[in-house]
């Protein structure tokens, strides 16, 4: 099992009446709600928490990309990852990911990911999302019906830039480059492992199967509702005669809150969980799906946007609803262990993106929950996939001996030249 400690980096100061006074947390969120001075603390605390997760023994620490978004103040995950690369020792840097259709030219992603891999000593796990419609179309202006074609071209260009050893010309439809020759290139060969976040389209299933990439379902609605979608993926894996159905071919994001007892979990965390599901997911439905962003095939299979709130909205979901419905796995270490086992077995996933920081959760509670998970839950789940022990195809391969940051030698001392009288 690979456990990645994930922080979406929500803005923790959305007002109580946010939902009533604002139509959306995303795209056209009120600028005035962001306080740059307060963000100084917020960013540093969030980065400290990611570093703390490394010391707890999580396999990875995860960051992602969103734009103009009140629950993700990380338009550039690479900037955060660069900071983490220096201040962490062992955890994989899971950048999930860079929306590659947005970069012009996408060799920028090949270069920055290569830098991260080099600085971290080969600890990069690279994610290539198509990006949500909010980010890709409404914030970054990409034409919805052309987004996937542009994405596919960007992917081809990045992989070639990473793997070819001589300068080449790339005559794409969206990128015309006469001299592709990135410098530096990544440590990991032939290239860092790739994870693809997807939302249920068959095209993305096939893309992962064909390239031996891990398929990640990053949902906020929990493992019970994810069953149908993940089953669709595994059915496709079987249909395509894929050589194996290793659980590492898939990943899943799950909100997790651990305390000593179930009651304590509710008392400590329900406020913050409510903040996330009530305020942070308040997205104007007109931004959820620009026409043309999803393929006709995907709409026909009925995969609707995860950003469309359940009928009646999240406001009416209580702690009990959220926990019983599996949106959130919360409770004592034993309760959480049982439900995590259920998740891993039912979805057949080897990569878990643990959403341990939720909404406006303060650092001390987040540390408490994370430590309990790392010490009392994670060890009991580690042995769950004995048949796939040693399948490292979807994970990073760091250098055995890595540099320690902040260890300069003593400064050069010029030899004293004796003075002649």
């Amino acid at each position: 099992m690979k456990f990645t400690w994930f922080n979406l980096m929500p803005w923790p100061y959305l007002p109580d009446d946010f939902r009533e006074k604002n139509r959306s947390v995303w795209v056209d969120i009120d600028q005035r709600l962001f306080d740059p001075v307060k963000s100084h603390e917020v960013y540093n605390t969030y980065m400290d928490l990611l570093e703390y997760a490394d010391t707890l023994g999580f396999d990875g620490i995860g960051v992602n990309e969103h734009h103009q978004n009140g629950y993700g103040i990380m338009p550039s995950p690479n900037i955060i990852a660069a900071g983490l690369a220096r201040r962490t020792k062992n955890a994989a840097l899971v950048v999930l990911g860079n929306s590659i259709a947005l970069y012009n030219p996408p060799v920028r992603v090949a270069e920055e990911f290569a830098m991260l891999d080099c600085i971290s000593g080969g600890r990069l796990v690279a994610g290539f999302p198509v990006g949500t419609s909010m980010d890709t179309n409404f914030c970054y202006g990409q034409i919805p019906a052309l987004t996937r074609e542009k994405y596919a071209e960007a992917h081809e260009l990045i992989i070639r830039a990473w793997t070819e050893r001589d300068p080449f010309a790339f005559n794409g439809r969206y990128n015309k480059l006469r001299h592709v020759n990135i410098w530096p290139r990544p440590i990991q060969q032939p290239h860092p492992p790739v994870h693809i976040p997807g939302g249920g389209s068959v095209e993305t299933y096939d893309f992962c199967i064909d390239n031996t990439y891990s398929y990640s379902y990053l949902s906020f609605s929990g493992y019970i509702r994810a069953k149908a979608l993940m089953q669709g993926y595994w059915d496709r894996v079987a249909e395509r005669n894929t050589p194996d159905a290793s659980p590492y071919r898939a990943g899943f994001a799950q909100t997790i809150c651990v305390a000593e007892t179930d009651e304590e979990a509710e008392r400590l965390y329900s406020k913050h969980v409510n903040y996330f599901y009530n305020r942070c997911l308040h997205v104007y439905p007109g931004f959820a799906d620009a026409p043309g962003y999803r393929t006709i095939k995907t709409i026909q299979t009925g995969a609707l946007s995860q950003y469309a709130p359940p009928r009646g909205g999240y406001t009416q979901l209580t702690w009990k609803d959220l926990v019983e419905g599996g949106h959130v796995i919360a409770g004592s270490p034993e309760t959480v262990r049982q439900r995590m086992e259920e998740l891993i077995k039912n979805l057949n996933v080897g990569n878990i993106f643990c959403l341990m920081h939720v909404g406006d959760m303060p650092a001390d509670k987040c540390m408490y929950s994370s430590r309990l998970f790392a010490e009392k839950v994670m060890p009991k789940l580690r042995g769950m996939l004995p048949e796939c022990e040693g399948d490292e195809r979807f994970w990073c391969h760091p250098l055995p001996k890595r540099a320690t940051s902040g260890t300069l030698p003593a400064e050069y001392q010029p030899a004293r030249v004796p003075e002649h009288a």
Partner: protein
Amino acid sequence: METKTVATRHAPVRYLEGGSGEPLVFLHGAGGMTAGDPILAALAERFRVFAPFLPGYGETEECGELRDMLDFTLHTADVVEALGLRDPILVGHSMGGMIAAEMAALAPNDVSRLALIAPAGLWLDDHPIPDMFTLLPYELPAYLFHDPEAGAKLMTSGLKLDDPEFLKAYLVRNARQLGMAGKVLFPIPERGLAGRLYRVKARTVIVWGESDKMIPPVYGPAFAKAIAGARLVTVPEAGHLVIVENPAAVVEAIESVAR
């Protein structure tokens, strides 16, 4: 109106044909077209009307090969050619007006009569056009009609919105149609037309509904200024769908350039 099909390089194109008189090509807007549209009936009383569906619209298949404004323009010129028409009266509404204007600018000697009805294609920083791609179905009438209540009734009549199968088909059609439109209209409905309008030689009429809230009437003078000799007709008590709210006034304006 009869539904027919004509072969083009990109896709078999479905089109509506009816009426008698001088040949006229009508290009629909981003919302699409049906055989029952009042503008078609009104035009058919005076002209031989040919109204092609853009690929992705109606029953015409999507076409991935059409990606940008030039593709749209040349494809539509191909349709006119395939219909065997030479220099028909060219009429376009909204997105269709944008395509018609591009055709007239690209091949000024092939288009001698042009009617642009609330066309897209220009952008004035002081008068931003609303983002139609974020609008929810119930929000549309306020942008499209002078009388939103009557407009809402028109838009929802015959729709079985409680039927999940109907809803799915509706979503698919919407995604297919507006996905195609987005190639020239998203995120800003401007693709450099302003720099090409000087080439238009056609006798041109521009028609605008006075209460247009989708593309505000201030765009009318902007088009009129850019096309030499163009005449601007403003229709009172009509919105962006002036072709629905007052088809007679639109036909009258078109007749003024027909001869």
